[in-house]
């Protein structure tokens, strides 16, 4: 706890110093940067709004899928598809839809941005809720049933608490995703027009286009500060708090005591009087809520027939909406394929191969460095203590925000503009992929039971044999989980990585991402847009179904560490 506070203070001091130096050296940039706190506030507000929607959606969707067998037959495959499609590809379409709906009013763009962030946050959270609800121990379910917990009470005391650990864990992931898309979406060209909303992402992107290096640095520093602050004051305390809701796996296995979230705020003034007054004013409302929920519960249980009716209507509505959406989509698709394909369509296969190879290179680089580093961090407490904060700081920066920095770096290294564009595309993919691998692997190494490590040591397993017999098999499931997530992020990064505007110049490489960009700007071509998105979906789904799922099933049955 102390170490972390010192670290926080250090970061704050470094950021402030950097800010002062930049402000003195570049007064104009400093003038620009005065608006930054406001921009940061706008960006964070968008994230919070999208997150609240995602949270409600995830709980409703996951709960329905877990408790309603008939609905889950449609809900689960749908979620599977939604989760694996590259969302950014849909953004131009969504943007045009929202802007058209609100007749060009800026609020339409805001809706589109929030919608995009929502789509990057919701799916994994819904899966988390579904998973936790289907893995509640049978005895706990039985206890709830035999003590008469039903409906709302069951949700409050069993389902919701049981979902909290995975919900919090996935919320953290979702926020990381969210920042990536926020930065990409605050400034966007679609249909020949550029849409822009004030925010940190737009600030950094504009600075990048103008090649304004001090502004880029200041923008990234502010973004890092916002992300870190939220991480330290919201997500870590929440993560520690959520440990309380974890099921005990095996009797006799100690779970470390977690510090209370309030310990993070110890340095804040306590103001006992104010607190007492707040509690006193909240208390009646809480009691009223309790009484209301009790009455609600009674009404609920006394009319099982009405409740069943409501459920049936709900289900019917869902099915109708689902069928309508799917049918419109299918009709649209058939219409498109009946017409002759646009001439550019012949580019699609080669573009897919090129994009895939770029992602593959990035994935290979990520593997080469993350496996040894994860092994080291997972095994050595000291290394972890010193390196993890630095890695987390890097990881907290969305790759989209680092865009200008990466292009600048690529320009320094590469001999020609074309090579620089290739290098930048690979680096951006690397930056969006590697952290998922690294943090999943670290968790995998940490989860190897001490008994196994000690057994390996006592039998003299060292070096290569240790890696081959213990470490690699033990981390196989986490490696696959990390890989699936990393590739998902990689596909999403394509649209920003293959077509970059930096310092008044375009850096472009052939691939699905650049095809997408061309389809929306400068010559909008909806058919090409749809075809490119479809190609991407087909490739991603094929990879998931044919490669990752079978591998994952094998790994989790063979290399699972039974407790």
């Amino acid at each position, binding site marked *: 706890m102390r170490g972390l506070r010192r670290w926080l203070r250090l970061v704050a001091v470094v950021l402030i110093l950097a800010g002062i130096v930049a402000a003195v050296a570049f007064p104009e940039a400093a003038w620009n940067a005065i608006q930054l706190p406001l921009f940061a506030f706008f960006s964070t507000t968008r994230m919070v709004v999208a997150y609240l929607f995602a949270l409600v959606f995830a709980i409703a969707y996951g709960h329905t899928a877990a408790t309603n067998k008939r609905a889950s037959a449609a809900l689960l495959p749908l979620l599977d598809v939604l989760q694996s499609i590259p969302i950014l590809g849909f953004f131009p379409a969504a943007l045009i839809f929202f802007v058209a709906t609100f007749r060009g009013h800026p609020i339409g763009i805001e809706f589109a941005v929030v919608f995009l962030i929502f789509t990057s946050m919701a799916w994994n959270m819904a899966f988390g809720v579904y998973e936790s609800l289907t893995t509640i*121990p049978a*005895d*706990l379910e*039985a*206890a709830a*049933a*035999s*003590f*008469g*917990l*039903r409906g709302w*009470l069951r949700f409050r*005391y*069993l389902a919701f*608490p049981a979902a*909290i650990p995975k919900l919090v864990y996935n919320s953290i992931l979702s926020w990381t995703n969210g920042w990536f898309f926020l930065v990409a979406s605050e400034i966007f060209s679609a249909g020949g027009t550029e849409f822009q909303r004030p925010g940190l992402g737009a600030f950094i992107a504009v600075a990048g286009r103008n090649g304004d290096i001090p502004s880029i640095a200041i923008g990234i520093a502010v973004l890092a500060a916002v992300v870190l602050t939220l991480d330290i004051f919201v997500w870590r305390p929440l993560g520690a708090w959520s440990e*309380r*809701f*974890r*099921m*005990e796996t095996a*009797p006799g296995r100690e*779970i470390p005591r977690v510090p209370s979230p309030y310990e993070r705020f110890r340095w804040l003034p306590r103001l006992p009087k104010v607190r007492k007054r707040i509690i006193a004013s909240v208390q009646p409302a809480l009691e009223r809520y*309790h009484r209301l929920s*009790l009455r609600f*519960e*009674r009404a609920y249980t006394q009319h099982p027939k009405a409740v069943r009716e409501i459920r049936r209507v709900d289900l019917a509505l869902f099915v109708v909406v689902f069928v309508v959406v799917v049918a419109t989509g299918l009709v649209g698709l058939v219409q498109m394929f009946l017409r002759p394909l646009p001439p550019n369509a012949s580019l699609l296969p080669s573009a897919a191969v090129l994009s895939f190879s770029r992602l593959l290179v990035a994935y290979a680089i990520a593997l080469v460095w993350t496996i040894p580093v994860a092994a080291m961090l997972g095994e050595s407490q000291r290394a972890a203590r010193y390196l993890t904060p630095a890695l987390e700081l890097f990881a907290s920066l969305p790759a989209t925000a680092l865009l200008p920095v990466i292009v600048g770096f690529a320009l320094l290294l590469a001999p020609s503009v074309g090579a620089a564009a290739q290098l930048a595309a690979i680096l951006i993919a690397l930056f969006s992929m590697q952290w998922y691998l690294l943090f999943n692997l670290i968790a995998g190494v940490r989860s190897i039971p001490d008994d196994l490590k000690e057994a390996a040591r006592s039998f003299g397993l060292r070096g290569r044999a240790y890696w081959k017999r213990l470490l690699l098999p033990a981390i196989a499931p986490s490696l696959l989980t990390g890989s699936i997530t990393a590739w998902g992020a990689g596909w999403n990064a394509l649209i920003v990585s293959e077509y970059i505007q930096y310092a008044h110049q375009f850096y472009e490489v052939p691939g699905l991402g650049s095809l997408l960009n061309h389809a929306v700007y400068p010559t909008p071509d909806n058919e090409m847009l749809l075809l490119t998105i479809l190609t991407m979906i087909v490739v991603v789904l094929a990879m998931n179904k044919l490669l990752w799922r079978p591998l994952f099933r094998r790994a989790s049955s063979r290399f699972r560490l039974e407790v």
Partner: protein
Amino acid sequence: MVDRPLLQVKDVAKSFFENAKEFKVLDLVRFDLTERDFVCVVGPSGSGKSTLLRIIVGLEKPTSGEVFFEGEPIRADNPQVAMVFQSFALFPWLTVEKNVELGLEAKGTLPEERRKIARKFIDAVGLTGFEDAFPRELSGGMKQRVGIARALAIEPLLLCMDEPFSSLDPLTAQNLRDEILQLWTNPDLPPKAVLMVTHAIEEAVYMADRVIVLSSRPGRMIAELEIDLPRPRNRKEPEFYGWVDEIYSLIV
């Protein structure tokens, strides 16, 4: 005084189906429970004892046969029947007191009343002072005490226990057995009858008035024995061992 049995188990049978193949776990189990009955069901593993208990409390439906409680078909959320679990099944996110209040809240008891009842039963199982502790801070024996207090708090007529001592160490288990018998002798405390499932024959002979012996795969009733040893029972006496040996020879 007792004209109607509290619990009637009528020819209960249960099968599971897998790949269109039938696996029979229970066959024609039939017995009654009246007030002040302490009955143990013993059987080797695979005799379907736990399945039987889950059917009796209404958590599972039998393939054929019926279970009546006070003359009515059984329902899972019947507040007159409470259950104690082998794995304790405490809600890890609720304090001891909240766990004990759970069934009361489902019944719609008011908060102050709930608190009073919960405290009374936490006290009865000897956990005074641990009201605000979370289950993971307790030892196994203490967790099971919470499980017992939670079951007693809804003041059930029938208390069902599914191998309540088999995940405890022997010493803790013996203490808890004695305490349950102590609670059982106090007529002011709720359950009118206790039904316990166990695989430990000694435990059954030590605690029960009546022992129902099940065979293995499928579970059929082999015997129903009236244990007429005086209480408190002494495990060292030859009569005690006579009973244990008799049941043992029935099962093997």
